[in-house]
């Protein structure tokens, strides 16, 4: 290779977990100013490799070099000292501290902390990255999207020369993705090397200079982005079956969406023209919520009919989480009403809402299960009275229910396995099984496919479509516009706690939704 030598160089990195080979003799490099995308399905070993580079996991074999010099990275501290910064999928922010404090935290030694100069540096850093968040805000008040931006600022706060972004766009809106890409371009022009981990082909094609593909722990491809087609990348990623799946997949189907192919507007619209509407299953009227004096929900009106999927689009932090909390009964609204199947449940507790036919699946998967408890008990946690006979739990019925759910929802676990041992996809299937087993009139579901691999992604979508076709209603909150446009019949846009407008799917182009999501005028 000509030009400057690689900034970061991995050679022969191998990592085994018992029988599983997470990384098998992987070698790759990142040059200064180069954006390298790492592509691979969930479980391909991307995260493990990134953790090795960042010192969170030690490799069994192999070496890491910076500027041609061998480096020993035993901890994130070593990684930072060597100019490696990382933004992980799971954030490491202290919720009770402000943005400034969080960013400055890793810099704090012993003694006096000059918070004022820290604040100034944080603002500069934000400027550089193109992020505008009040430095005094507590992290606990930030949305997931905003927290990620703070993480990026934090990673760049040090003398960072290689930035690793692990699935950074999973939580971002199209506009945010655009801003992120602009940032990446700006930073790479200054000589920063970027390693961008993703499983979305489209993003990779757009942002990277070079693509490396991991499959089952092995590096199976290293291509220049401009010279490789989506089909080839997909086949590298998923094996030979992948390419044909992508190429033959009708636009707008789950496979196509999952790998990031553009949604064909007309096909989606045509598929979604449904005339007959069932009765109203969810009616939200003038829902208002104040939090710390701020109107986080402002007279929200939403209606879901039987047999339709209504989407809620919006940049994270515009009231989605509050809407979820209010609908699930975790927070009482200041005003307005919620009706499920004609029953007013505004003042009803969770059990009453479940009784009325509300199903719920929140974005916080881990907060919805009891991790140490078995799969079978988690499955019946909302229905304990049903499984009680003469004051005693009917263990046989619980077991057989769990077995049938495991079979039906293809959960890869045994009934007595602790939920904590399950993968994200299987955990989501447990929650989906729990919600759907009650045959809800209307299912409220938020970010259902975040972080899932293609198989699970497709599976969740199929289930939601089945629920709709069976006469159930679905209220779907998602930050993934492609997902919304594949599934929904109507899409409402939430902006600063207000429903800014509602579009039938035929009119809901990415551009229009994008304008509305940023508070633009309501299209006629």
């Amino acid at each position, binding site marked *: 290779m000509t030009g400057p030598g690689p900034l970061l160089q991995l050679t022969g990195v191998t990592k085994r977990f018992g029988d599983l080979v997470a990384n098998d003799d992987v070698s790759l490099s990142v040059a200064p100013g180069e954006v390298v995308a790492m592509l691979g399905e969930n479980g391909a070993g991307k995260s493990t490799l990134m953790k090795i580079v960042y010192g969170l996991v030690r490799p069994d074999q192999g070496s890491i070099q910076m500027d041609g010099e061998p480096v020993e990275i035993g901890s994130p501290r070593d990684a930072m000292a060597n100019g490696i910064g990382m933004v992980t999928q799971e954030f490491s922010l202290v919720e009770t501290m402000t943005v400034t404090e969080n960013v400055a935290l890793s810099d704090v030694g012993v003694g006096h902390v000059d918070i004022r100069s820290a604040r100034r540096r944080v603002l500069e850093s934000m400027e550089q990255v193109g992020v505008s968040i009040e430095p005094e805000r507590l992290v606990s008040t930030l949305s997931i999207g905003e927290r990620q931006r703070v993480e990026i600022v934090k990673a760049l706060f040090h003398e960072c020369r290689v930035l690793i972004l692990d699935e950074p766009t999973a939580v971002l809106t199209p506009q945010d993705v655009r801003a992120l890409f602009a940032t990446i371009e700006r930073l790479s022009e200054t000589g920063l090397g970027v390693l961008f981990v993703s499983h979305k082909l489209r993003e990779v094609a757009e942002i990277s200079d070079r693509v490396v593909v991991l499959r089952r722990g092995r590096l199976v491809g290293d291509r220049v982005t401009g010279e490789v087609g989506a089909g080839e990348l997909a086949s590298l990623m998923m094996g030979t079956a992948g390419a044909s799946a992508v190429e033959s997949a009708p636009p707008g189907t789950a496979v196509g969406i999952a790998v990031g192919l553009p949604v064909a507007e007309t096909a989606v619209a045509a598929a979604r023209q449904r005339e007959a509407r069932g009765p109203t299953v969810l009616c939200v009227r003038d829902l208002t919520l104040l939090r710390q004096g701020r109107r986080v929900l402002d007279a929200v009106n939403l209606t879901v009919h039987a047999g339709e999927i209504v989407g809620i689009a919006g940049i994270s932090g515009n009231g989605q989480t509050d809407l979820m909390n209010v609908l699930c009964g975790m927070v009482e609204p200041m005003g307005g009403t919620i009706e499920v199947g004609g029953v007013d449940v505004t003042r009803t507790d*969770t059990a009453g809402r479940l009784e009325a036919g509300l199903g719920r699946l929140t974005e916080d998967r881990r907060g919805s299960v009891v991790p140490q408890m078995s799969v079978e008990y988690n499955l019946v946690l909302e229905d304990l009275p049903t499984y009680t006979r003469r004051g005693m739990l009917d263990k046989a019925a619980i077991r057989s229910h769990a077995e049938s759910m495991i079979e039906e929802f293809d959960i890869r676990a045994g009934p007595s396995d602790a939920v904590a041992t399950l993968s994200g996809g299987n955990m989501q299937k447990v929650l989906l099984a729990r919600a759907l087993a009650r045959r809800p009139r209307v299912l409220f579901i938020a970010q259902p496919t975040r972080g899932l691999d293609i198989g699970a992604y497709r599976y969740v979508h199929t289930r939601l479509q089945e629920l709709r076709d069976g006469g159930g209603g679905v209220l779907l909150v998602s930050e993934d516009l492609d997902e919304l446009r594949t599934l929904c019949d109507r899409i409402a846009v939430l902006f600063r706690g207000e429903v800014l407008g509602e579009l039938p799917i035929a009119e809901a182009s990415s551009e229009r939704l994008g304008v509305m999501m940023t508070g633009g005028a309501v299209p006629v």
Partner: protein
Amino acid sequence: MRLVLRGREPRWLTPVAVLVAVLATLAMTAVPIRLAGANPPAAFQRYLVAPLSSTAGLYEVMLTATPLLFTGIAVAIAFRAGYWNIGAEGQFLAGAIGTTAVGTGWPDLPALLALPLGFLAGAVGGLAWAALPAWLKRHVGIDEVVTTLLLNPVALLVVQGLLNGPWRNSTSGFTDSDRLGTGYDLPALIPGTRVHWGFGIAMVVIAVTGFVLARTANGVRIRAAGQAPEAAAFSGIAVGRLQWRCALVSGAVAGLAGAAQVLGVQHQLTGSIAVGYGYTGIVVATLGALSAVGVLAVGLLLGLIGVGAQNASLVLQTPPQMGDLVTAVLLITVVSCLALRAYRFVRRRPATADAPFAGSGVAT
């Protein structure tokens, strides 16, 4: 050597961890026992074997274990629900006060009336003492660890205040209460021994708790609330109310311990009636993994060590505190070994740590 997280814990690991902890306890306590001038193997024989080698010793173990079984299961009930009741000591004393109040207030009641009333008064006393911190936790959000703990010395001061004031012994003038009426004498569970019906009641409470936790819907709710309160609330479980109720039940059971000690052993209130039973209950519950069977086993084990320590102090002239020392070391080693179950020991690989570039190719 490094510690590496395990993926899964094999089943054999828990017994092995407990065994390692016991061996470590024996090794570590051998030193102070030697310093006390005794022969460690002989001392361990006194602690762990001698009490079991005679029926009289066995009965003594059951008697000593009785208050620990009560307080152990009381603490386990609260901990299971995620309510950290550190106040079993105070609730024990409040129970003893309640029982003494009825026992000295109506000394002439027949046993058939007196005993249920005595136990009821003990339970009410413990419950009342637990109610204030539980209420503060539920409605004001004040941490129960602090409030329950701080109410323990308050309860002791109330006992001392009563014994120095209104309840001072009317015949001897000592700071002990009057003897309760004879109707309040708890009969022996096994005739001819000191083992009283309190032991039987403790067994019933443990059995009922085990059944509720393992076999009923409320048991599942309690476990869910304790392990993941937010997820439990999301699933429609009223976590706050559940913890409040478990806190009250926990206090009532700790109060029963005080009642049993007054009715079955002391027959009067004394300033030293609790001697740390409430605190030891935390040890029993924790070592017993908050399960009914575990509480039973550990309660009896600590009873055994308690009797053994008295025995050893008589025969081998070791200080009686040596038994507490063995118990405390056992707690630390067991808790540590159980925590270490999640890890395995790995010897550092020279390939990555010392010579990271051996065998790798030339950089391109």
